């Protein structure tokens, strides 16, 4: 019995060696995890000898791991800073993959329709300067809505996250007060409010507390049917976040050569102002040439076939000019 078990084990080991699967490892952002997961699965179905493994440990972790060389590629919701790039031993190319947006979700007793937020109103609420729902700053933009005389409770993220980065980046652009006192980052010192862990924590707080407002990913709000408001963009139009308005945000901004760009508060009359790319961090000179070639092949697949799969999961696809720019950059900069 033991002998036949040993024989079986040897055969199993040999057989698995014969299949010679190549495995790529990546780690990073949590926001695009559902779409990456689907892409890697689809790619594996088409190339059965290639397996790409992704761990959503967070953008900070993704940046650290790709710098240390422990993973073949990283992923981040926020681009690396100049200092991080200077300090990194591994040179990476930022490859935008999809677009996401952040929406202001609320729970106002007696109000079921859409509330319009001006940039000043949002900044004032999150700074703690606007404390009641029937404050003039909010009611002036919502003439037909019966906003109650209720205190505003702010809900924000307690964990560091790309969602916070996008939202605070937007607030820093539209409010000098915010920029000086709080600033932007994956984790900031919030002037007011209670912290919830993850999108689900913030959504939970919003649902439970009457009179609360918080910021969550669009996908989360859509899938969980949480009411969210529209935000006034730089052309003074009130835009409600959707896949189209998110892609429109990327169209209006000039893309730099290294793809590190912020598209919050962009020009464009249909653009939603609180949107962002999410990036894959691809080493330009990979240590393993075979894996580098496979990764390059995957990136081209992602930019062609992969972009058609995004809408089903409520991610906005990249604009076509960005796709063309990326293909050129990958061909030129990523070896082999």
């Amino acid at each position, binding site marked *: 019995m033991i002998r036949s078990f040993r024989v079986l084990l040897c055969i199993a080991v040999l057989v698995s060696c014969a299949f010679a699967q190549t495995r790529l490892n990546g780690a990073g952002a949590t926001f695009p995890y559902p779409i990456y997961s689907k892409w890697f699965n689809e790619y594996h179905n088409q190339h059965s000898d290639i397996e790409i493994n992704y761990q959503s440990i967070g953008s900070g972790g993704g940046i650290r791991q790709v710098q240390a060389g422990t993973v073949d590629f990283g992923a981040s919701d926020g681009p690396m800073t100049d200092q991080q790039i200077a300090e990194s031993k591994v040179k990476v190319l930022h490859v935008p993959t999809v677009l996401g947006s952040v929406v202001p979700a609320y729970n106002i007793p007696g109000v079921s329709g859409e509330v319009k937020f001006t940039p000043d109103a949002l900044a004032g609420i999150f700074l703690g300067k606007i404390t009641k729902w029937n404050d003039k700053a909010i009611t002036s933009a919502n003439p037909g809505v019966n906003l109650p005389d209720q205190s505003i409770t702010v809900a924000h993220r307690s964990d560091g996250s790309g969602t916070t980065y996008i939202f605070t980046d937007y607030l820093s652009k539209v409010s000098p007060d915010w920029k000086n006192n709080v600033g932007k980052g994956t984790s900031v010192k919030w002037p007011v*409010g*209670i*912290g919830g862990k993850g999108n689900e924590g913030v959504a939970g707080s919003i649902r439970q507390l009457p009179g609360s407002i918080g910021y969550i990913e669009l996908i989360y709000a859509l899938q969980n049917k949480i009411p969210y408001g529209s935000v006034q963009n730089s052309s003074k139009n009130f835009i409600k976040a959707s896949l189209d308005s998110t892609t429109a945000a990327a169209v209006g901004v000039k893309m730099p050569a290294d793809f590190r760009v912020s598209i919050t508060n962009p020009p464009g009359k249909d653009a939603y102002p609180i949107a962002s790319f999410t990036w894959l961090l691809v080493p330009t000179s990979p240590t393993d040439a075979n894996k580098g070639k496979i990764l390059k092949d995957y990136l081209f697949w992602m930019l062609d076939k992969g972009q058609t799969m995004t809408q089903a999961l409520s991610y906005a696809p990249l604009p076509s000019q960005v796709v063309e720019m990326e293909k050129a950059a990958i061909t030129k900069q990523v070896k082999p």
Partner: protein
Amino acid sequence: MSDSVDPMNPTEPLGKLQKPATAIPSMAQVSKERRTAASTVLQKIRTSHPRASRIPDTVFAVIILLSAISVFAIVVLVAWQLIDKSRLSLHQFGIGFFYGHDWDPVAGSFGAMPFIYGTLVSSFLALLMAVPLSIGVAVYVTEMCPQRLRAIISFLVELLAAIPSVIYGLWGIFVLAPLLREYVEPFLARTLGWTGLFTGPMYGLGMLAAGIIMAIMVVPVIASITREVMTAVPQNQREAVLALGATRWEMIRMGVLRNARIGIVGGVILGLGRALGETMAVTMVIGNRPEIAKSLFAPGYTMASVIANEFTEATGDLYLSALVEIGLALFIVTLIVNALARLLVWSITGGTARVRA
């Protein structure tokens, strides 16, 4: 022992007192006999076995010694790693880190005081609620419960310990927080609001919710240890107190609880240890706001929560090392609290010699 006269085994004859025929050997005599018997056996083993068989004995002794040292070594290693990885932050902020109030990742300014405060207050609040409850449960189960209910109740109490802390967190968000917000907090604000502990906006989430959840998690720990210690009190203690005319409550208080108090304190220390380190359930209900507020309705933040929340996304070496230094602060707080509790036990028992656990 040589200068005290033992009436059962006198070294000098007390007048005409003869040793009774059926003399009961004294404790000293018995233990001396046992020791000589043991050493005789050991001598026989040593002389009869060849030298080579002493090597397994020595190896065994060394392995056991290494196991004992490894526990100590792990603690030292943990402390060393904490200090090493937080070196940047230690250098930058010095001792001021432990009483700084600011936690600003963007500006690079970090201080641990709100977290230390949050951890200590939530843990002590939990203990305040859990200790009377657990002792009550233990007293009921050991002394007053009908025999057939005993097993069921103790099983249910221990079941509380088996529930994962994330489930407690979810229960806290969806059941406890609305309950607190709608009924309990307005009631407390109306009746006890003058103390300043129950004022301010009522979110449901906050220090009070965290304290209640931690109390529920700590009750099975303290209750089961208290129950064991109370069961270990010999029956003759209870009977002696009853024989002196005590009521049932007096019997429990004087006969049982007084004898079991060292064990109860040990159980409370264990419960406190669990409360100090609890992460998931706390971070889901405490509101995660690094501020020190007098009111229990206000949100707070604990050391374990901030590490769990911010560690994965922490970019920047100073930020990371500040978080590790929070871990170091938690380590030190746990050590200090345990040391203080141990000192308390020693002061009750009157010295280190009688420490049991």
